[in-house]
């Protein structure tokens, strides 16, 4: 019974959305996104980039405040420890050289 309750709670938790405030260098104001916990970081970054008007590049998300950590694009938001109420910064993660 207890196991069933935990599983049910996990399912409900998975379905709930993360509310994350995203900043971008080119915008004065942040945008609030509501994302599925299981959404991949790369997909969230792409959605945010589009919303802020970025075209091309390699969008990524970094934790705030500085010094932040660039999230792993291959992980889900929840797997990379993003929580509701977090603030993230949209960054371009392309390389130099």
């Amino acid at each position: 019974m207890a196991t069933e309750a935990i599983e049910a709670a996990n399912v409900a938790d998975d379905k709930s959305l993360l509310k994350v405030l995203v900043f971008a260098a080119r915008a004065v104001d942040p945008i609030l996104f509501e994302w599925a916990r299981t959404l991949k970081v790369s997909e969230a970054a792409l959605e945010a980039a589009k919303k802020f008007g970025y075209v091309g590049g390699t969008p990524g998300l970094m934790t705030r405040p500085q010094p932040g950590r660039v999230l792993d694009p291959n992980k889900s938001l929840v797997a990379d420890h993003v929580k509701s109420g977090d603030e993230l910064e949209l960054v371009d993660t392309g390389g130099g050289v």
Partner: protein
Amino acid sequence: MTVLPATDVRAVVEEELVAARAWASRNAVGLEWIPDALELRMTLSQLATAEDFFFRGRFDDYQAIAPHWQCVSGAWAGGDVLSDYPKPQEGLPRPSIYLVHAVAGVRTPVICAPFNRLAYSEHKGPHGDWGAPANWLAARQGHVRATTIPDMLSVIQLHFLTTRGRHA
């Protein structure tokens, strides 16, 4: 060769500086605009050493041509001095923009990104394959992309976070 009137450039830069200043404020970054010189100065403090580094952007002919970015001394002078440039850490997930290349056999530092005029071979940079710096807005697969001033500052800072010490 200057193509655009300074007043036009100043207007474009100052429009972009609104977001740049907001970015600098929320990231505790020092930013100063010298309008008469069309020069932007950014100071970043290195996490590993607590040393300050000084980034100077010059915007003559912006946006017709990529701006001109260098690391300089604390007196905002120079631009080719190796020790004014931060040194990337080993084993980074992406190649750093803080590069040293050879110009006539001399080790020369450069902020190697499409938004820096000095990365193009026309300006003694390593990139003959990027065409002219007037093509700086073209997308280049895998390379950093920054098409506004605040986006440039963000890229410069992101790569700076993974540096330790100075080039020597």
